[in-house]
């Protein structure tokens, strides 16, 4: 019963509309800068390798795109080990 109510009342995460939105977000970001998901992996590996050559990294570094309007930026978060 609760599941039924949730389906009726909420913006179902599995609806085809939200799937369309998710897929568009990814594809438009890549289209706009002419990249691919393969490039993201390569970028992540190379950026982390570069930083690690100079400073010690602690935890899991994250590299992803953020978009604002029609503009895209690369968001890099690399936790560093304290002494």
């Amino acid at each position, binding site marked *: 019963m609760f599941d039924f109510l949730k389906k*009726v*009342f*909420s*913006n*179902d995460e599995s*609806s*085809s*509309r*939200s799937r*369309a*939105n998710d*897929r*568009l*977000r990814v*594809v*438009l970001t890549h*289209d*706009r800068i002419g990249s691919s998901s393969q490039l993201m992996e390569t970028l992540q590996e190379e950026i982390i390798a570069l930083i690690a050559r100079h400073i010690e990294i602690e935890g899991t570094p994250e590299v992803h795109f953020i978009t604002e*309007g*029609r503009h895209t930026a690369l968001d890099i978060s690399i936790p560093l080990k304290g002494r």
Partner: protein
Amino acid sequence: MEKKNSESQVIVVTSGKGGVGKTTTVANVSTGLAKLGYSVVVMDLDIGLKKLDLILGLENRVIYDIIQVVEGECTLKQALVKDKRFPALYMLPAAQTRNKDDITTEQVLAVCNELKPDFDFILIDCPAGIEQGFRNSIAAADKAIVVTNPEVSAVRDADRIIGMLESANFKDIKLLINRLRPDMVRSGDMLSIEDLMEHLCIELLGVVPEDSGVVISTNRGEPIILNDRSSAAQAFNNIVHRLLGKEVEFMTLEQDSFWSKLKRNLGFKN
């Protein structure tokens, strides 16, 4: 023909993807402007795949085409086809047996400049695609209407087109969402107006709901904007007024149903 404004506006209607409603938009917006007394010419640049003459119901009046104009076989005035209903509306037909490369950007610009002294509005029906036909269509325009449908493939192409228009230094790019089905949006099976705005991030010119009347009006060669009772006609009328700089409220397509009220009252996110 009497021109209302000293300045002419050249507007290209484009989309990237085919079949989203470019020609329907051109036919209805131009008819709507002519109905209000503006002098309007529509230029069909879909060389080789022309449709505008059919949608406007003018196919039997076509004698010359734009390629014959630029090749000097006839004058521009001879090629212009006068609309049946509105004396201030003219069409410059595309050639059907030629292709997009048979006309250059410079030639399109020259034709446009020759039309400007006589018309308030020049609307360009752009072919699908991003090749020569698209480049020709945007070269002469200073404003763009990007037509899209609420589906992923059309949105992706629209995004590409918007990017290309921005690279070509267009400052005035507006979005027209065509064939929206509010019932499907409500049931979570179609991208909403807000979704499209979030993805494409340009100003909204209007939303035309799916309307079976469009097929009927196309069969007859009478733009649907002339049929006062249809919702698509109302949407196109609003679009015409917004193009003229008037503030027109957006139609409430998503009706405030019992369910949506209940949902809101219960505090669920809409």
